[in-house]
């Protein structure tokens, strides 16, 4: 890859600047790092949290900018697929730049973002009132952005609601809940705070609030289900969608499969994919079945050595889980951190072997009396490990969501030989994204039709 000057150069127009700033702020709640991923469609910002349970993707279309220029610096050797700008910025570096939204709207007249690959940095220039020009040079790390392919349109349940309604409702739930549950039937939508599983007095209050389907702009429930995910993330996402002034679309299925919260207007598309708790009451006893996060190294495996394993794991496509600690504390820091740490280590060592990461199981799992269920969090990006989890084998989607790796050469034949049926959306990297985006359009249309 030769040295190269301008990867992208989008000056931002008036009110868009604060929206851009708000997008960065919202993603800063997800992760400490942000990928800047320009393409001919526009500039995408991506972030994933350390435990890989939340993924944020905000795409600013080229029309969002007054002027957008992107040229691929080089193409991949074989396939003529343009290489991405592998640009990962530390949130710490750019959040202060975009922190004051008011300032961005009022005092800044123009904002220019230029990437300079030769110097490994992105330049943010603010042309402010009174002839003041502020330039920020932010160094970036060379890192492949994580791209998640997810078929929103295949979800059984699709809801669309004005974010204000949800925000008002959230306020009424007690504030110290860590998780929130959406419970749907064709006639009803219920918002619940996490159910306390301990019989202790100090366990939190369980709150519940119902919404009539009439209150939604679009209400399609194909599957009666209850999904639980991180409350904190929901709050951040709602606040961003209110700024966008478009309804919030929610796509989900069975527990364990990630929920997608997305907002779409003509210039800007935001998607947040959140892992949901899966319900496996039978799994309590055996630590072995509590499978773990696989690193991205999975993708780089030698086909010969591990195709069988890949095949098996992907075929069973049950969500893999990080087992939970005592139910009272729903986000056990320590076990989760250790699994994440191991995971990142694996990613960097690029191991070919899909040997399991040392378990993050917490042995003091409480199984309270009564129907309290052990809940496990799904790590949504990767295929299953345990062969025991076969329940979802019949489900059409092989994996919940697949991380695409642009350096990968997805050899469909090879994968099929391994016994894996490749979903239509996932053929080769760039095609895969195109397909996914195309696949999403019909849904968008359906939703906008419903709006009328």
């Amino acid at each position, binding site marked *: 890859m030769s040295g190269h000057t301008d990867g992208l150069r989008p000056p931002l127009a008036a009110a868009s600047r604060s929206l851009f700033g708000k997008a960065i702020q919202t993603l800063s709640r997800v992760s400490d790092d942000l990928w800047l991923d320009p393409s001919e469609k526009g500039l995408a910002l991506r972030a994933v949290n350390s435990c890989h349970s939340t993924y944020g993707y905000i795409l600013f279309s080229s029309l969002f900018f007054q002027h957008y220029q992107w040229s691929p610096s080089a193409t991949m050797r074989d396939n003529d697929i343009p290489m991405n700008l592998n640009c990962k910025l530390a949130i710490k570096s750019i959040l202060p730049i975009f922190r004051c939204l008011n300032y961005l709207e009022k005092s800044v007249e123009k904002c220019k973002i230029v990437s300079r690959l030769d110097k490994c940095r992105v330049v943010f220039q603010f042309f402010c009132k009174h002839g003041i020009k502020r330039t920020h040079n932010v160094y970036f790390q060379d890192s492949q952005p994580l791209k998640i392919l997810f078929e929103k349109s295949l979800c059984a349940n699709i809801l669309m609601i004005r974010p*204000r309604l949800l925000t008002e409702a959230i306020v*009424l739930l007690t504030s110290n809940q860590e998780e929130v549950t959406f419970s749907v039937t064709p006639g009803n939508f219920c918002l619940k705070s996490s159910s306390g599983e301990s019989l202790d007095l100090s366990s939190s209050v369980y709150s519940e609030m119902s919404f009539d389907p009439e209150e939604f702009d679009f209400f399609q429930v194909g599957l009666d289900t209850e999904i639980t995910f991180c409350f904190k993330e929901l709050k951040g996402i709602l606040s961003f969608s209110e700024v966008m002034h478009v309804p919030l679309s929610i796509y989900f299925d069975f527990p364990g499969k990630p929920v997608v919260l997305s907002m779409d207007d003509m210039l800007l598309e935001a998607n947040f994919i959140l892992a949901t708790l899966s319900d496996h009451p039978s799994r309590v006893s055996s630590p072995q079945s509590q499978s773990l996060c696989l690193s991205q190294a999975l993708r780089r495996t030698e086909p010969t050595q591990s195709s069988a394993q890949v095949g098996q794991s992907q075929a069973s496509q049950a969500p893999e889980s990080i087992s939970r600690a005592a139910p009272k504390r729903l986000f056990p820091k320590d076990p989760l951190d250790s699994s994440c740490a191991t995971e990142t280590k694996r990613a960097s060592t690029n191991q070919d072997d899909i040997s399991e990461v040392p378990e993050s199981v917490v042995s003091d799992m409480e199984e309270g009396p009564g129907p309290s269920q052990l809940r496990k969090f799904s790590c949504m990006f990767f295929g299953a490990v345990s062969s025991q989890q076969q329940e979802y084998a019949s489900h059409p989607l092989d994996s919940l969501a697949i991380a695409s790796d642009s350096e990968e050469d997805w050899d469909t034949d090879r994968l099929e030989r391994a016994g894996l049926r490749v979903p239509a959306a996932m053929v080769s990297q760039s095609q895969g994204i195109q397909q996914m985006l195309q696949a999403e359009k019909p849904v968008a249309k359906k939703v906008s039709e419903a709006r009328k």
Partner: protein
Amino acid sequence: MKFRAKIVDLACLNHFTRVSNMIAKLAKTCTLRISPEKLNFILSDKLASGGVSMWCELEQENIFSEFQMEGVSAENNAIYLELTSENLSRALKTAQNARALKIKLTNKHFPCLTVSVELLSSSSSSRIVTHDIPIKVIPRRLWKDLQEPSVPDSDVSIYLPALKTMKSVVEKMKNISNHLVIEANLNGELNLKIETELVCVTTHFKDLGNPLLSSESASQSRHPEDMAEVHIDIKKLLQFLAGQQVTPTKAVCNIVSNRIVHFDLLLEDISLQYFIPALS
């Protein structure tokens, strides 16, 4: 055991919410006693509370438009529940502009007090929010510890000054010393004193007035200038004062020399009694 009650009047609801907020500040965990005529919030003088006890009583018909209860048995027609006070006050806080509020005893997986609020949502359809507050039912054998404390024969009885003023004084004193002396006489004078090696600080309140005493009272023969005093833990006094958000209708302080200080407040129709024992 059954309990269900309903509040439809907004003023009553706000009043009940205020009481619940106060209780949440006074005691982290407390006992709720439900009887046919009354509701009581009780904190008994266990070691956990450091000897402090509290008895708050409200007449149910002043608050609830509907009230039905069935106690443990016919002879023991009461229900004693233990709950985390903050859970109740937070749940009530969501009912600020509610049309109606219902409370009932339920058993969903574990015993709960279910607070169900009917709100008018912005889309003008009413929305129901329910909160299940986990509780523990207190068995009958422990009821004897949770009875109304007997009001001791006090040496001095005096009306309290403005509680906000007392609170700001005690707050500052807390930084200097851990215990405080509260003393009062029958001449309407009350002092708050702290003493360390380096400094003594006394705040004097005058012209407070003393409630009329009954004729058998021990303090009949007492000289009006004589101070009755108690050494107490300053944090306990501060906790009591911090819980008072509203000006009470009536506030009396009864002191039994070197034994206990008893605060007797009336907040409209709700009575609160708070006992702080002397430091041993």
